[in-house]
């Protein structure tokens, strides 16, 4: 049985906890569409599976999301940041049990005078042998006044594990840009197209109605 939990910034308490019970499968969607300073802890119990979708839309926020992943549990965490504001996001992922799995992915698109500080700290604890974990962060700066700071941090205290991370910036090559412009697209249209592509990727794995809810919100922002 799949559980879908959707939370908006206005409903989120300053410090809250979410527990995904053992051997259950759940989706957790957090929509940060207004100013928020909060800390949330998410515990994925043994054998449970959780997919998280964090959507950050144009606001000044300071958020700390902590995740604890137990034995044989799985966590897929996706984040999409569309911002022209000051945003501080710290995500922590503690893998504490053997055979745990984690895939963390975040795309951030910064417009205007956006200033983003994004930390993703992945800790593989000594008992998390045979765990398989990865963090991938990507940054898209759409404005000369935008600033981004990415820290994909990895702390590995077990030796029989797979652990990796990557971070990168993205920009269209001159050739790609030229090709799209020869097809009659303006620079703004190209940027919108890019955003739509990222958004569609972000909602993958969600049911249609939830995906539509998120895409509508993103479209409003675009």
């Amino acid at each position, binding site marked *: 049985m799949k559980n879908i939990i959707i939370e908006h910034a206005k409903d989120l308490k300053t410090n809250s906890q979410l527990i995904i019970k053992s051997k259950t499968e759940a989706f957790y969607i957090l929509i940060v569409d207004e100013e928020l300073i909060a800390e949330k802890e998410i515990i994925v119990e043994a054998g449970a599976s959780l997919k998280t979708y964090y959507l950050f839309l144009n606001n000044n926020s300071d958020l700390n999301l902590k995740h604890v992943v137990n034995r044989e549990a799985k966590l897929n965490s996706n984040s999409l940041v569309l911002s022209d504001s000051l945003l501080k996001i710290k995500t922590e992922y503690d893998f504490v049990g053997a055979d745990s799995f984690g895939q963390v992915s975040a795309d951030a698109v910064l417009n205007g005078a956006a200033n983003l500080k994004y930390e993703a700290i992945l800790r593989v604890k000594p008992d998390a042998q045979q765990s398989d974990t990865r963090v991938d962060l990507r940054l898209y700066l759409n*404005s000369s006044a935008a600033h981004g700071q*990415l*820290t994909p*941090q*990895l702390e590995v*205290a*077990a030796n029989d*594990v797979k*652990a990796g991370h990557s971070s*990168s910036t993205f920009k269209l090559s001159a050739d790609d840009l030229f090709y799209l412009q020869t097809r009659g697209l303006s620079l703004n249209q190209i940027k919108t197209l890019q955003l739509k592509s990222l958004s569609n990727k972000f909602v993958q794995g969600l049911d249609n109605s939830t995906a539509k809810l998120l895409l509508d919100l993103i479209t409003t922002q675009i």
Partner: protein
Amino acid sequence: MNNNDALWEDSNQSDYMNKTRLGLDEALIRQISTDKNEPAWMLEKRLASFELFKTKAMPTWGPDLSKLDLTSITYYAKAMDRPAESWDDVPADIKNTFDKLGIPQAEQELLAGVGAQYESTAIYHSLKEELSEQGVIFEDLDIALQKYPSLVEPYFMKAMPSSLHRFAALHGAVWSGGTFLYIPAGVKIEQPLQAYFRMNAKGMGQFEHTLIIVESGAQAHYIEGCSAPRYGVDSLHAGGVEIYVKEGARFRYSSVESWSKDAYNLNTKRAIVEADAHMEWVGGNFGSNTTMLYPCSILKGDRSSADHLGVAFAGAGQTQDTGAKVIHLGKDTTSNIVTKSISREGGKAIYRGLVEISPLATNAVVSVKCDSLILDDKSQADTIPVMKINNETATISHEASTGKINAEDLFYLRSRGIKESEASAMIVNGFIEPITKELPLEYSVEMNRLVELEMEDSIG
């Protein structure tokens, strides 16, 4: 180069230590300056640094330095009154140490110049005559300050100001000895130059300063090596390296640091790279109790570039907190960082890096790759890369991975009759090969040997 376990076990009698004292105060700083007959500006700089040192706190991030007792360090000890004119004039006990390190032999066979420092002062410096004739200067920095003040003053502690952090301020106050290397415009030196720093006495602090100026279109390779015997008492190395790579020049700085395991290695290395110039850092960090070392390239000129290649080995009780820092200021700049770390027997290896793209640094290209090998379940490897991106045209990629020795590789080698420890050392040497291959053969052999010694617990 030879490598001998005795280097970390043997220490010479140190009669000159009777003339030293523990701890640091203004009187000692004035004494150092008087002893070296320094110009007034240098004493002023030392005293200003000391004032900064008193106001700066210990770093609140990184490894635990709370056990480092700065009042128990000997900040200045002079093993010889002045550097020897020839190797034969070096006192026998000191010469014996450097003979074990293979310094005179290396000088004859493969080096363009060689320098050696023992405790706080240089004991020997030499340069091939044909390079002197081309205007190359390779001296002990204390001597260069007397002979070439107009070359030293404009650069000294400009890339590495005392205000940088507590140990840069300490260094500015008590620096002694080190290297001054000046390469005139267009001069290309094929053979490497080398300096070797030996901290011999118990509870010693070594604060050598390396100042290198590579003029436009020049090219050279400089190598530093360091070691210290083990006493069971903390010692401190807080050296400073400043490199100025002018337009179109190329410079490679390599270091193999193998301090004893009671040494704190808190070193600062920075380079300013001008237009179309290229800077390369190649580093191997072995030994020491705690190392904090992050060579920094400031890519000031357009089209300037830097490569940072590093290996760190953390064994029992060790923390190797190393990495790289690149600040992109000019347009069309490029940096490439590749690090490899190995941890075993409870050691902790940390890659800590910063890449910063300034708002005016258009079209910067950065590649960072960090790989860690954890050899047992007691050890740890952390990767902390920070990317500050303030220009939308930057292209940055960072990739890191952590793993263990592949069981199949180990099985294959063991099935060929190779002992497990030897097989592991071979695999580790293969792992660091992308770095060692950048060193001259003699030094890559040295680094491989250091890995083997670490695998046998022989260092420090």
